[in-house]
């Protein structure tokens, strides 16, 4: 196995991502002003050009992974608020307004409040995290996320010692989310949660982009969680609220079917779902006749995270 470690680039050398992201807007605005004498606003739409170039790679990774083609990742999402169809979600999700976006941070913290996403981002150093993403449906892909550690956001708002869990709430917008409108299947809005030590773990990130571009809407724009050693449904999309709690929050899938989906939902080949095996996974982007991949405990991140669960029976706390 090739062990690839990239030296972290000192933060002084990293361009402010917002400044970088809006560079065209700024230049176009300047040109516009020059030509017409009037300011040009909102010239930047999603123009499919990279928003980040040469992002520093986070040095949290110990394995070298082959990235899944972006087209697959962009057209294979479980976004049940929109549809139960993984491909249809791509189009439907475009209806979600993501700009401006604010996140409410509340509960057991010293500095609760409603924060503009841009203000939150301006204080973070954005890096690339190449993670394997393992769905509870027994498929996986490798995604180069663009984001920052959740821990550094939490440190900013200063959790109190009473904070034992973190609850995440996704957007509730039934006007653009058909399954919220008809109350289909799950209880909306979507809620997920982590134990505080899981949330503070350096592998746990909040992602704002992937493949060097800002996050596609179907993949959870503008802000989503990524917890690489847990099944994908833990990695909640379109977060509007982060609450620090004394007790474990009731999470959406766990509430829907507690025997099928546990609070922890750590990737574990030895604990099958009641109706299907978790022993192997189909790697998206692999060719026909390619055998499935043997699923690894904690999705291969055991070296980093197994200690969080050292005294726990993983069959009981699945």
């Amino acid at each position: 196995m090739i062990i690839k470690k990239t030296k972290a680039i000192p933060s002084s050398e990293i361009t402010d991502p917002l400044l970088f992201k809006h560079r065209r807007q700024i230049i176009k605005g300047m040109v516009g002003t020059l030509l017409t004498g009037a300011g040009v606003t909102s010239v930047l739409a999603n123009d499919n050009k990279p928003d980040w170039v040469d992002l520093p790679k986070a040095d949290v990774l110990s394995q070298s992974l082959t990235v899944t083609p972006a087209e697959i990742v962009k057209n294979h999402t479980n976004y049940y608020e929109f549809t139960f169809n993984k491909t249809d979600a791509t189009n439907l999700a475009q209806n979600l307004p993501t700009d401006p976006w604010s996140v409410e941070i509340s509960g057991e913290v010293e500095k609760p409040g409603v924060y503009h996403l841009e203000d939150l981002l301006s204080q973070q150093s954005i890096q690339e995290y190449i993670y394997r993403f393992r769905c509870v449906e027994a498929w996986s892909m490798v995604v180069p996320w663009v984001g920052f550690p959740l821990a550094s956001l939490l440190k900013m708002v200063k959790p109190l010692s009473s904070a034992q869990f973190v609850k995440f709430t996704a957007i509730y917008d039934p006007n653009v989310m058909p399954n919220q409108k008809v109350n289909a299947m799950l209880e909306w809005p979507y809620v997920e949660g982590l134990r505080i030590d899981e949330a503070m773990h350096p592998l746990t990130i909040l992602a704002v982009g992937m493949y060097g571009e800002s996050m596609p809407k179907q993949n959870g724009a503008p802000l989503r969680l990524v917890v690489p050693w847990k099944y994908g449904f833990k990695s909640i999309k379109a977060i509007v609220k982060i609450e620090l709690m004394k007790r474990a929050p009731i999470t959406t899938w766990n509430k829907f079917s507690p025997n099928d989906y546990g609070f922890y939902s750590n990737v574990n080949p030895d604990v099958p779902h009641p109706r299907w095996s978790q022993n192997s996974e189909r790697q998206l982007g692999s060719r026909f006749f390619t055998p499935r991949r043997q699923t690894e405990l904690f999705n291969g991140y055991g070296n980093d995270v197994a200690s969080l669960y050292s005294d726990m029976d993983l069959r009981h706390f699945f």
Partner: protein
Amino acid sequence: MVFRLDTLWSKITLVCLLPLLWVMIDITFDNLGPDPIQTLHIRLGDWAMRFLWLTLLVTPVQTITKWRGMAVYRQMLGLYAFFYATLHIMVYLLVDHGLMWQIIAVDILESSYIWFGLIAYLIIIALAISSPKWAKKRMGKQWKKLHQLIYIASLAVIIHYYWQLKGNMAEPLFYLIIISLLLVFRVALWFKNRKFTKMMIPTTRRIKVVSVAKVLNPELSIDLQGPVLKELIIQEVEPD
């Protein structure tokens, strides 16, 4: 035998092969989406299931329209269900798993949804093997008993479909409704026949009814099916 396009049989054969052609075209043009193997599973499984439903549909259609001679098509549709189910399983073993038997074994052992699919497939194999005319002749009464297992197979298929879903039940629900209708039709028919059998028991009242019917239709003892059956029941309901 020369293959002739103008017979109903050959036309049906071609139509039954269209779903396969469609799948082949989608494979060729890489048109199966981001998870092509899963799409193949669903497509082939769906067609196996649809042909199973069509097979079950033959008898009700025959009873309602009184159009005889559809048994040959029933056999053919059943064999197509077997054909698509076999492709479905080949894709699982070969395309999805590359014949890695160890991983396949664990997958089957730990996935209860696969057990139901397997039950259905084992039944369908037995039915396919015993489907030729000579087998039917040789097996006599046992043949019908064996082929009634198709009801178990169709229920197993529904569970197989449901069990692998994370939660969205809309599509299998549609199939569940279809299979329910097909089964309800048969249960109704069974009750109707049971009533008829009861009438054959020589109680005074029933004998009277039968004799009335006999007067109305002297061919009764020869042909106990179709309109005569209806007539008998109507007459039985009428007060003496």
